[in-house]
């Protein structure tokens, strides 16, 4: 029950499109960079939304912090490192390749490869057993 309430509270926090003042950008280049960067970052509260999309209070705070760091002359790399140091790899939509993320990065490829092997085996087996009956009439396709 408490867990449910907590989840509900989280949901409400996410849904509350509270009147948050829009960010004022100095110029278009800054806005473009900010939009690109915040779309690559994951909101820590509503984990299926990017920092750019989320209405959660913490996402708003983090957006402001990202903008502040940008204006301090930090690079995108430095801003991401700042967030990772505090909120872990979770904030990155593209996590770094390391042993703990190998499954994430290479799992799909391995599965695809496994599927390909199965297909090849099945096809070979069928080719060996199926009677190679040539169509009686070449002009008739099916």
């Amino acid at each position, binding site marked *: 029950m408490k867990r449910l309430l907590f989840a509900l509270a989280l949901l409400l926090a996410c849904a509350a499109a509270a009147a948050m003042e829009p960010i004022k950008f100095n110029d278009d280049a800054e806005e473009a960079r900010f939009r690109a960067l915040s779309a690559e970052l994951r909101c820590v509260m509503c984990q299926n939304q990017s920092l750019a999309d989320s209405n959660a209070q913490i996402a708003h705070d983090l957006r402001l*912090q990202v903008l502040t760091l940008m204006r301090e002359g930090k690079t995108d790399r430095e801003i991401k490192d700042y967030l990772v140091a505090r909120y872990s790899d*979770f904030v990155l939509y593209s996590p770094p390749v390391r042993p703990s993320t190998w499954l994430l990065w290479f799992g799909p490829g391995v599965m695809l490869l496994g599927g390909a092997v199965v297909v090849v085996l099945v096809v070979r087996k069928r080719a060996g057993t199926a009677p190679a009956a040539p169509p009686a009439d070449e002009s008739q396709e099916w």
Partner: protein
Amino acid sequence: MIKRLLPLFAFLALAVLLAGGVLRNSGKDNSAIPSPLIGKPAPAFSLPVLGDPSRRVGNADLLGQPYLLNVWGSWCPACRDEHPVITDLAASGAVRVIGYDYKDAPEDAQRWLQQFGNPYQLVITDEDGRAALDWGIYGAPESFLVDAQGVVRWKFVGPITPEVVRDQLMPELEKLK
């Protein structure tokens, strides 16, 4: 015969895999982000004390004994659920409990504590939530266990329950002895 049962075996293998995944993850809060601060010194902070804003408390002031930093806010319904557990924990004397009033108006926080009781040895206030970013705080309640040397040992996201105290916090405290 074997060939006929092959799809069934494939289905069973898949079912076992999925059931394993579900069992492994059930009863666990998957939205909780693991804190990268564990094993590292607590972030530097200096925040005003609730009820005495001219006084500021920082890392150095809290060294010497372990403490549990409990992030809460008067706006947070789950904090109300957690409150009796925090109260019991503080009363047991197992660990100092320091309150971290997150994104809250001091008047509201004080009213909340008057209404429900104040289990905290000290409450520091972070009205704009700026210092919270350094702790990796993203909501309330959250709790950090910091040891006597100021190193973060454990973090819990969400309301602490008596089970969490028994199964996680107490063993962590035991390790510090």
